[in-house]
């Protein structure tokens, strides 16, 4: 059988062990790279496995099932810390893509320009992976190792993205830069999350995508922001603090120097957005 669409994860894992197949979900990446009238097999389609889809709150974490679509994310009731993720979900391709494309698919495809990765990075997300033998989790930062490279093994399936409750705090924002409004591959994109203690930043998480082989957290920026006054935080973001984490390429969309500059500006704006929203709500 070259196309297998099981209803149960166990069946999926068994099939995968016996077949050297590709895993499909929303197919938005798989179909985009072929002119064929079908996906050439063998293909394991996970969209029939109900247990893999949906967002749930558990004691210590939020669980995003692997085949949760971006439209599911947009519609979900989630704390403000997930605003960046929701915003990114709305920016991924188009409604058509968001209705089909899945959270795990975006991560497993591991495009350097994947809009879904920075918002999960600032949520300290982990990846839950299943094999017939059991499950393991590893930090998202260890999962994606390079452009279109992950540590996912041949007989493994990503089952969920896990966000610890500790990271589901504060406010977040997402900024995407592209040369047109919809259906656009990012020149750069930024996600930021701030936890405020009164008017001070108690902790910050900032990530940048499309400016290097993999999206990355900006730890120096995060350190520089911690303990600072929220209102003036954006001004603390300097080119130098941002640039050391980035290794962008120059390509058809922008040159490398521009990407660093733009990313820095986007970081400032995302941080500004996190603080402004907070201030206005306090004022209200």
């Amino acid at each position, binding site marked *: 059988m070259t196309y297998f669409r099981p209803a149960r994860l166990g069946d999926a894992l068994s099939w995968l062990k016996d077949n050297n197949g590709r895993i499909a979900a929303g197919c938005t990446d798989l179909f985009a790279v072929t002119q064929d009238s079908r996906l050439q097999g063998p293909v394991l389609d996970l969209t029939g496995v109900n247990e893999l889809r949906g967002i749930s709150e558990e004691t210590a974490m939020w669980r995003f099932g692997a085949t949760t679509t971006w439209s599911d994310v947009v519609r979900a009731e989630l704390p403000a810390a997930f605003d960046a993720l929701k915003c990114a979900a709305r920016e991924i391709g188009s409604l058509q893509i968001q209705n089909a494309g899945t959270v795990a698919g975006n991560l497993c495809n591991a495009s350097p320009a994947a809009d879904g990765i920075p918002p999960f990075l600032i949520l300290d997300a982990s990846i839950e992976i299943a094999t017939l033998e059991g499950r393991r989790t590893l930090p998202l930062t260890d999962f994606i190792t390079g452009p279109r490279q992950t540590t996912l093994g041949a007989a493994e399936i990503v089952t969920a993205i896990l966000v610890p409750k500790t990271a589901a705090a504060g406010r977040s924002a997402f900024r995407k830069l592209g040369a047109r409004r919809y259906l656009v591959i990012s020149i750069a994109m930024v996600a930021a999350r701030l936890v405020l203690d009164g008017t001070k930043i108690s902790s910050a998480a900032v990530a940048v995508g499309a400016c290097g082989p993999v999206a990355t957290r900006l730890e120096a920026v995060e350190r520089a922001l911690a303990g600072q006054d929220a209102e003036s935080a954006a001004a603390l973001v300097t080119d130098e603090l941002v640039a050391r984490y980035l290794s962008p390429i120059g390509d058809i969309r922008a*040159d490398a120097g521009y990407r660093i500059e733009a990313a820095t500006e986007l970081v400032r704006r995302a941080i500004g957005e996190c603080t402004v929203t907070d201030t206005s709500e306090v004022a209200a």
Partner: protein
Amino acid sequence: MNVLKPALSARINGAEQLLAGDPARRLSHVLREDLGLKGTKVGCDAGDCGACTVLVDGEPWCACLTTAAQAAGREILTVEGLSDGPISALQESFLRHGAAQCGICTPGMLMAAAALLQRVPSPSVAQVENALGGVLCRCTGYRKIIAAVCDAGRQAAAPALPVAGHAVGAAIERLDGLPKVAGDESFGADEWPEDALVVRAIRSPHHAAAFAFGDIASWKRKHSGIEAVFTAADIPGRNAFGVIPPFADQPALAEEAVRFRGEAVAIVAGVATAMRDLDTSDFPVIWKPIPEMLESQAAAAPGARLIHDSREGNVLISGMVVAGDADKALALSAYVAEGTFETTHVEHAYIEPEAGAAWMDGDTLTIRACTQAPVMDRDDTAAVLGLPVERVRIIPAATGGGFGSKLDISLQPLIGLVALKTGKPARMVYSRGESMTSTTKRHPARMHASIGADKDGRIVAMRFAGDFNTGAYASWGPTVAVRVPVHASGPYRTPNYHASARAIHTNAPVSGAFRGFGVPQAALMQETLYDDLALGCGIDRLEFRRLNAIADGDRSVCGQEMKGAGIRECLDALVPAWNAALERVAAFNAVSTDRKRGVGVASCWYGCGNTGLTNPSTVRLGITADGNVRLHQGAVDIGQGSNSVVTQICADALGIPVAQFELIGGDTALTPDCGKTSASRQTVVTGKAALLAGRALRETILRMGNCGQDAVINVDAGRIAITEGEVRREIGLAGMPVDANGYVLCAEETYDPPTVPLDGNGQGKPYAVYGYGAQVAEVEVDMKLGTVRVVHMTAAHDVGRAINPMLVEGQIEGGIAQGLGMALMEDYIPGRTENLHDYLIPTIGDMPDIESILIEQPDAEGPYGAKGLGEHVLIPTAPAILNAVRHASGARITRLPALPHRVLAAIREAGNAS
């Protein structure tokens, strides 16, 4: 797993349907090929264009990205299921607003809109934009689509078609619109004879290479179901085609060497099941790559390898226009602006990739394919296949956008060869990548110019030189090289002028016709320098243009005395919008630092029809014995509206209601030649022929009734009634002799615009009719990111007479969308941006509000005073936007597209200079 699988099925448009075959197939494929639901269009097979949007359980999905297995058990709605009756209120709204032009994106738009309207019956503009952001349209500029969706909830009766004598000037729904919104318009990929062989081309992955074939016979044997493989050796005729016969140089299948990436070297034909996913990567062709020359500079350098041995210096042709003494006048000018400008390849990016079918009808090879020029297709295909033209018949399919590229033949000789050689019908649909690599592009230009003004700001001289990268083959390169020097002055009085343009061969894709034939590039150069001059002279930029606008009685740079010149009227009409925009941006900028707004203006003029060359149209108008009125209207309607406009003109000339006309399209077996849909010529040239045919038939009828000019004609079943005051006469049609075309009354008239060929200095009367326009752009520039958002456009176009104002607006909005794309995002790079996610065209969210102002400065030559418009509308947009960017930010852009990084760099440069 030895279990019998239950068959897959889904509820499609309310009925349970089996989804047979491979569960991994694209839903789009199942819908179109198995279930015959061809309203779902395929534009890219990659989720980039949204043409295949269907509703899955009420939500919009790309059918091309959905497997049959994923559709199983779901509720699927396609355009065919949108309405139980004829058409839904949404579809009616699309018709009423002119939201469908070519119609290829319409089903996708309708489905995305239907999903929105289910949730939000009266959506806002922003909601519509978000809902339709995933469907690309290349014709409309989206604004009428937005209006149609917002207005879909309103019950409105379709406006009545105008009565006799009132068709011209009426904003009627397009006469061919119903199938476009119903989803049953039949495009190139939508119809084929049963059991047609599927044809695929083997194309060069290299920009330049010598090649040889290996053992094709044994490759063929290895793959079952393949009927035939053909190479250049199988071509029976002259293996060199081209739109301009003396320059015809492009092989249908390359011989020994390829000159650009994507050039076809062989075709494979076989049964559909074998061809569907045939892996051709092992096709036996051995490539010997040659170092490529992609830029005109390299190819024009001394000693460069010749792309064509017969064309010295890789120069295909050069054109020149000289008037007065430009150098002397420049030296004496009070102000001189000088600069360079560089543009890139622009892809037409119609949503319909090339498609068609061919079959033998007795001795006649019949080809039904998308096209802009059926008679040229016939002649070129016949020459390649060694057939007399009488043995080739072209039936134009509905064409899903053209913009110039579907003037050249593409798959016609390939499917024609298969049908001719095998005797079996053949069909072919280009993939998106194949369409982008193998068909023509807008010429990249490298231009240098100087313009001088006197102390009062009057233009005294211009010098212009441009190299246009014409790519591997001639195509329309000669036209670009000729048109550019004629138009590079813009619609401005320029007494001393020296302009030259060269078309340079490279290994880049073939550059051909694209809305404006090089004039949009030249306008960027000229209008940028006009802003320099206005700033230098200290004159308001719009005022500067009004001061220099060419007027009736002035001589053009070709020495032609201008008549019916309406540029001054266009510029005058923009004054209120200009002043209001200047005030708005000043107020905005006073309180904004990170974002700055600016206003820019630019103009256009454009000669309608061929440059100093004959380009006739012939229109036949007949009445049958039953009283049916048939208009043989051969001007291919690729969405621009010739089916409506030409009929409206003819209706008023004959004096009967437009509703009574039956249209016969550009089938070469049925309809006389109306030339090509290009050069903004169809309203003027075919329209004039239709006017003459209508008048001629009217005169015949009046003469038969012995009535005067003011009599009223009524054509009924089997008779014509003529009323003149109290007098009423009747002509019975039943007994009248029937001519070879089946008519009892018929008129056939030809119109060829009177022109005078250009002499060695480009002097003459290149066009009988010119159209004019000017546009004001208001933009917002992000000063830290370099992004540009066009906030508003005001466009004033002198169309002489707006035959159909709604279609005129549609052309303006669509032209602006393409101009905006060219200015800000479009950059075709061979080998790199051969898809619709790397090659960006504007989406619905990139388009500003557009205010159209129609100026009607009648032209004595045009039908009812009408002038052409199709290309004019694109020309001012990009320079107006760039001039606005500069006004906002100081950034003087000299290279397209103005991507954010280039704008930011230019802002920096301006900041450093000041």
